[in-house]
């Protein structure tokens, strides 16, 4: 990696954020007087735990959020000029573009239709809203050829893989000649081979004087190609350093603080030595997604009592649909699923029977399937616990709720507070607490620690591990975070375009697992 101080370039500041503060409903302070400069031709890694404010900061820079106070300066010809960035279009006009973890593309439209909207609103190459799409198509094909990427522009976005979507996003940034590209954890969970394709693009961009902000909570990623690293901790900027000059340990300590850094252990947790009977058995499973395409293509799987089976893989390879099918939430096209040793064939039974058997489910789509925000904690838990009653035993449920809230240290004014007033992390804790409680025989968990700060994430992982080890439940863990899979799984599979590869042991070298993720 070349030194960021180019010989023929001064330390030109492209963007300067000064004293940015932002808080959210409920009193959550996301950013506290953060000041940061971004130089031309550099890759700056912005690191911090989940909840440290890094995502908020870049969302302010790209116009999605508006800061409560503070100023932003952007380089124009004469020098730095104070600007207000009021919308994503505004940011793009000023040369700032964001690539998010969830691709910001309209699924039902084609690639051309999506990008044409940006081209037209920025009047790139004479495009405007009354241009015909065929004219835009010509412009785009030319640009893409220049960059050297081959992709069918008439493809509908829902047909693309996650990696392809992110590629389209970055190509969009390049077509509109953005000066500053903010990457909000978009590459964080990609295997290294996929990442390298993007890294090359980013390095090329850097050579031409563009700047990139790489937001991540993973230290190795931060140190991979960045020139500088800025560390955010609980909304404050605690450190800005040159990457070459620091060690990962230093970054860790800056991210977590001395005390917490000790609490956060990245070691493997102890497993059982012997597993029980087969609890979850899946045979030749085929499942369709919401668009009617087959996304689970003949999967076989066995999870035994006391075992944690982890399925790794880039998001969008059918994992979500697999989990939903196993728990009975999604129709099965063909194949068989047995829960609890052949007693229930999921295809015939419904999700109601599965849940009553004692299967917990932490869904991938938390706000769609995991919680009812208008209701309070007690009411949410009542649905899970009072399955057979016609009249709800409120006092019993209140007791259970209080216990769960204190065990998981959920921060809430009371158990009767509507969950919409809780922070995201606490909502997730309520969901995890509730589902662990409901998991008497098995647990199916999708990304159970996403957005949680590291200490809470460790806690949840330990709890899941304990459940398996001491209560002998079968756990199917699906996570896009390979570190998490390696940390607690006993058996590992990789899901790639609807097929399952494995089983692998946790001792399998990381590169081999990542290779399976790419294909």
């Amino acid at each position, binding site marked *: 990696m070349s030194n960021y101080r180019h010989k023929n370039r001064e330390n030109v500041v492209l963007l300067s954020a000064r004293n940015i503060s932002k808080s*959210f409903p*409920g009193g*959550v302070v*996301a950013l506290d007087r953060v000041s940061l400069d971004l130089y031309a031709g550099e890759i700056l890694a912005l690191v911090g735990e989940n*909840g440290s404010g890094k995502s908020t900061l870049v969302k302010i820079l790209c116009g*999605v*959020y508006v800061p409560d106070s503070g100023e932003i300066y952007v380089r124009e010809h004469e020098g730095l000029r104070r600007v207000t960035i009021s*919308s*994503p*279009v505004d940011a*793009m006009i000023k040369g700032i573009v*964001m690539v998010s973890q969830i691709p*910001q*593309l*309209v*699924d*039902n*439209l084609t690639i051309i*239709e*999506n*990008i*044409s*909207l*940006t*081209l*037209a*609103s*920025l009047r790139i190459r004479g*495009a*405007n*809203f*009354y*241009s*015909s*799409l*065929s004219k*835009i198509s010509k412009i785009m094909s030319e640009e893409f050829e220049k960059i050297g990427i081959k992709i069918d522009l008439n493809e509908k976005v829902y047909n693309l893989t996650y990696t392809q979507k992110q590629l389209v996003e970055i190509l969009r940034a390049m077509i509109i000649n953005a000066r500053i590209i903010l990457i909000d954890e978009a590459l964080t969970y990609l295997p290294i081979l996929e990442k390298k394709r993007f890294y090359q693009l980013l390095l090329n961009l850097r050579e031409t004087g563009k700047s990139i902000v790489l937001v991540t909570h993973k230290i190795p990623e931060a140190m991979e190609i960045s020139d500088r690293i800025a560390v955010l901790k609980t909304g404050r900027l605690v450190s800005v350093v040159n990457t070459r000059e620091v060690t990962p340990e230093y970054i860790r300590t800056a991210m977590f603080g001395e005390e917490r850094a000790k609490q956060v252990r990245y070691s493997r947790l102890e497993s059982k030595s012997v597993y029980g009977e087969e609890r979850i058995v899946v045979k030749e499973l085929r499942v369709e997604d919401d668009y*009617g395409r087959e996304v689970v293509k003949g999967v076989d799987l066995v999870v035994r009592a006391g075992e944690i089976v982890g399925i790794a893989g880039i998001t969008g390879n059918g994992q979500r649909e697999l989990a939903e099918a196993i728990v009975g939430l999604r129709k099965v096209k063909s194949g068989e699923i047995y829960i609890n040793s052949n007693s229930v064939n999921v295809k015939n039974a419904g999700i109601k029977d599965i849940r009553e058997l004692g299967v917990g489910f932490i869904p991938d789509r*938390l*706000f769609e399937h995991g919680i009812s925000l208008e209701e309070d904690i007690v009411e949410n838990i009542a649905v899970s616990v009072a399955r057979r009653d016609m009249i709800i035993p409120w006092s019993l449920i209140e007791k259970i709720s209080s216990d769960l809230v204190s065990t998981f240290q959920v921060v809430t004014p009371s158990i009767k507070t509507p969950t919409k007033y809780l*922070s*995201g*992390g606490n*909502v*997730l804790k309520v969901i995890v607490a509730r589902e662990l409680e409901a998991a008497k025989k098995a647990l199916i968990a999708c990304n159970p620690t996403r*957005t949680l700060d590291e200490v809470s994430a460790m806690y949840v992982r330990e709890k899941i591990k304990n459940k398996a080890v001491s209560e002998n439940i079968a756990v199917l863990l699906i996570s896009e975070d390979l570190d998490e899979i390696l940390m607690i799984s006993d058996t590992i599979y990789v899901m790639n375009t609807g097929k399952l590869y494995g089983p692998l042991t946790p001792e399998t070298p990381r590169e081999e697992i990542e290779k399976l993720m790419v294909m």
Partner: protein
Amino acid sequence: MEIEPVFIFRLIAAFTTMYLIALGHSVFEKSGILNLSIDGVFFLLTGVVVSIVVPLADIFSSLGLPVILATTLTVITTGLIAVIIGVFMAWTLTKLPVGQGSVGLALMFLGYGLGIIAGYEIRLGGVRIGLYTYPESLNIYVVFLIIALSTGIITHILLNKTVIGAAIRACGENPHVALVLGVNVLKTRIIASIIGFFIMGVGASLFVLLWQKYWDIKIYLLGYGWLAFTIALAAGRHPLVLIPLALLFGGLVEFNIRLKTTLGLQVDLAKMIPFLATLALMTIYGSTRLRKIFEPPRSLGKVFYREERTV
């Protein structure tokens, strides 16, 4: 059975009216706003037509100008008045996090009431609307047929082959992502409302001036607005697919009267036919593959608010 020219005329008129109303409604809903006001607004506009055309025609004829000019001017004016309603809906339901269904329903009720008031003077005066409508001439019907079909084709090209059309559809599918991509969601929806409601206004005026050639407050009980709503639903709001459906159902309600006499139906049973047809179409749409092919825009009816969450 002899096909008299009058049959063809009435069929063309029925088709043109139902098609334009369903078409305008479709363009509007493509931008993501649910339009439950359609039946009330349709009736309101018919009342507006009646209240404009009579005095306007009187002025024109006193100036020596042909009545047909007044009739045509009424059609355009009605379209413009409809645009006011449409822009109001688009602005309110995009700028403010307000429930689209309840505003639509409120406007439906207001439409019924205001329509009755609009046409009151005319009804009271016992005026025969037939004097102010388009004459029975083949040329007129053909001209309007061509206008209707051209509007449909142009709308189709606009929606599916231009960037503004992609913007409208993006607002309907996922307005938050559209915003990030650079679309001004408010402006786009207002454009869709101007186009959509103007077409609807023209359609509603043709209902009185080309098709029925009469007006009465009982028109609000006909349910044609809901029929147009359902035609749009079943056709996936596609300008070209609307054509056969509008023809079919326009023809059905037009020949309602004929059915009544040939089958000897009691008047109340006959009045049910458009409603039963609507329910039947809904059933066919909902229970077959039609629903998959002609999906509504994903964000139709959803409140648009630039949400700021901590997760």
